[in-house]
């Protein structure tokens, strides 16, 4: 049966995925799932069912295999999120250094609660420790590390995001 695949993986991404596959034994296709989802999420901000279909189709895998992966790893978003992802680490070391206030400050400033999204921002409910404990409190904005946060520093970072086109 012919499947209607609604999403086309760009040729640039296709060749990137194929290149990635060359790292593994020839018969292995699954190892490219995570990478392909990263590429697609980067383009589309979050992963929709048509993306899962496209990846499964491209790699010749079952959709459920791709979906299992997309739903397991916390970096993959499956619902609409804002343009910039902000993850404030609130794990032990950061918590001891006031990450809860930092988070609250950002919540107030962006007018969204943790876990929520506005058009521009997604304040991720980050449960994991982001491995920058010695720079606590810290956060990631679109995967860039910002350490030793203060309110002033946050103002600057957010201002930077506001001003970008």
């Amino acid at each position, binding site marked *: *049966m*012919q499947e209607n695949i609604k999403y086309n993986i760009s040729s640039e991404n296709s060749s990137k995925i194929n290149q990635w596959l060359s790292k593994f034994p020839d018969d292995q296709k699954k190892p490219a799932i995570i990478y392909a989802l990263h590429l697609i999420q980067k383009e589309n901000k979050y992963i929709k*069912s048509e993306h*899962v279909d496209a990846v499964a189709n491209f790699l010749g895998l*079952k*959709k*459920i*295999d791709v*979906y*299992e992966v997309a*739903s*397991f790893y916390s970096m993959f978003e499956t619902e609409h999120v804002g343009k910039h992802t902000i993850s404030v680490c609130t794990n032990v070391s950061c918590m001891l250094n006031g990450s809860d206030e930092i988070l609250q400050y950002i919540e107030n400033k962006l007018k969204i609660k943790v876990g929520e999204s506005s058009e521009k921002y997604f304040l991720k409910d980050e449960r994991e420790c982001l491995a920058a404990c010695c720079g606590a409190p810290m956060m990631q904005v679109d995967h860039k590390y910002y350490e030793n946060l203060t309110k002033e520093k946050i103002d600057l970072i957010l201002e930077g995001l506001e001003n970008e086109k």
Partner: protein
Amino acid sequence: MKIKINNIECTFSKGETLIQVADRNGIHIPRFCYHEKLSIAANCRMCLVEQVGVNKPQPACSTPAVENQEYLTQSNLAVNSQKNTMEFLLINHPLDCPVCDQGGMCELQDQALMHGRVKSRYEQEKRVVLDHYIGPLIKTNMTRCIHCTRCVRYGEEIAGIKEFGAVGRGESMEIRTYLTSAIDSPMSGNMIDICPVGALNAAPSHMRGRTWELEEVKYISPHDCVGSNMNLHILDNSIFRVVPHENKKINETWISDRDRFSYEAIEHKDRVKKPIAKINGRHIEVEWEQAFEIIKNKMADIDPGSTAGFISAGSTVEEQYLFQKWLRENNIFNIDHRVSQSNFDYEEDDIFPKIDIPIKDIENCKSILLIDSNVTYEQPILSHKIRKAFLKEAKINSIHTYSYKNNFNLNNSLLINPNNFSETLIDIIEYLSVITVNDKTLKKFTIPETIKNKFKGLTNTNIIEITNDLLLKNSIIFLGSNLKNHPDFQLLKILTNIISIYTKSNTCYLGEKSNEAGAWLTGCLPKRREGFALAKHQGFNAKESIQRKLDSYIIYNLDLIDFYYYSELKKSLENSKFVLGFQSFVTEEEKTLYDVILPLATTFESPGTFINIEKEWQSFAQGCMPHYDSKEGWKILTKLRLESGSQLSNSLDYIDILNEVDHIIRNTESIEPTKIENYKINEIKSNSYLTRTGGNYCYFSDNITRRSISLNTVNKNKNLVYVNKKTLVENNIDLEKNKVILKQGDKSLLVKLLVDENVSDNCIYISNSNREHFELGKQYQPIVIENV
């Protein structure tokens, strides 16, 4: 090698796990995720036991036995660990046993009684999981799921189609399909059985009865040609559900969905409830005596030479035997069961459905060739065996007109036009005769010139590879039942046989119905009597009987669409003087063609015997009493024999009939064809036409499955037609529109179209899943496609 479990000395072989050793020695270890047919997951942690000298409990299902070690399954450590796991499993379990289908046969319930704490200490909110629709066969109740992943592994490993997955992580992990896709595997129902709790339930019987109210009757599949063993669970003289009955030689612990859910048909509106007779042009219900009276009078009237009797290959051995006996006693010799066959050339040489090796040995074959068989959907149990061979790295090849979806991968897949079947097999034979010239042990065949001109030369590498694979030791060729409709069917059987002789391969001719072998052996044939004895009075075969427009017809347990010559048959019936039916079901329209219809009990409601392709006789008891006013076939036929004055022994018990048949035909040998000199190829009319392909849809294959509501709602796409893009373009079909008109002969049909590259060029694939498809015509015939 030896270990001690609970101080009992047990021997084991290398690689065995503790649970295997314990099971063999009758030592009970609780388990949820472990299942002997599935890979080890070791995720439920219910089977923890103590290894003496080790302070951590060990999971018995995944821990290999180690020489001279001692293990305890009842020590404090073991029992506490099991208790703990039980408590964890129950904290998020709804404990709604009173309303759960599984109640009374639930592994969780049983083990909670043995290993659980009395009172729950968990007070927090329990996890609630939303249920998603996964099709008409399985009703989920995922809040009860204990995440043992048996169902997921079953899909991946046994069914070969991974549909369930464990989605998400941690406590919120859910077992589900992708989005809301319905389960498609033809063996999905087995997940209901292997689920240790009530998370997966049989939808038709969901919440309609409790386990302890049921009575169990062993039964044999009325649909597949391997004779899967199953148990009917009976509630108030109705079938409540069907589950597998373990038979190591045949179906192991599985059954197909078709076997599990087809029983729903028993209550279908088409059911013939009382005898029906046409009186003064009107069909009315009559009493049995009256019906017999009419039959008696008519039978005295009719010309036996101008009467034909057809019986289903899905009826029991006893019925088939009595049917032909009754007819022959009344000098009616036009008897046949091969109603779906199109061509009867050389029928003396016929080979009946069989398999050369035990079914359980298929998995050890090194090479398997499928000739136009949609085996995964039509014979799921055989497909499971092929899948096992595939997992043991057998080479599996297929020659077909449609790239069927299989639960194994193909080594070589050769998509051909149905016109080219014979020539493809001839190519194989020619290649074989070249490469085996030096093998003196082989009998040589010369292909007659008439056929040989079909030979294309040895250019097709696919053919060469397929043939080379067949030369591997331990190979088998499956000839699909679809080909019965093919004009070259007889020749294809012969050619397949020649290939098997050259390659020393085994063969298997797949039957369409549960008891095709039985129909052959009991003499439901025009030229042979029971036990293959040549008949003194030779009758007409099905095709001749239909085309000769006889005076009267007797049709036993068949829908008219079961006939290849369906439309001709309808005309013949209309013009005949007397039509008698023995039917469990009849449609309103077909009813008008009969003069008398006797209400026949379904095989569920009758004892009986089926003979599978392995020639294994399997008898079963009566599942439930016949519904309505229907009666068992063996009783009706015996009564009719008595009425027509046959001399029968005093006793008229079912068992006596079985013994009689058994005595006469048990040791029948099949006949082997040898000569091919006279064969000619029957071309499918003209090449300028497109050809219709596509055989029986597995849930529309006989009068029972056609009436099983749940099965027939499984596949939403079954009523589409499939054509590849090239063919569509060449026929100027507008690809934007999704509807087309099909024309066969003087019939036409508006259908939904699906572009599908699995169809071979110049073919239209239609699965026979709908009465309209039968009305349009049959497969392997010319067909025209047009824009709307």
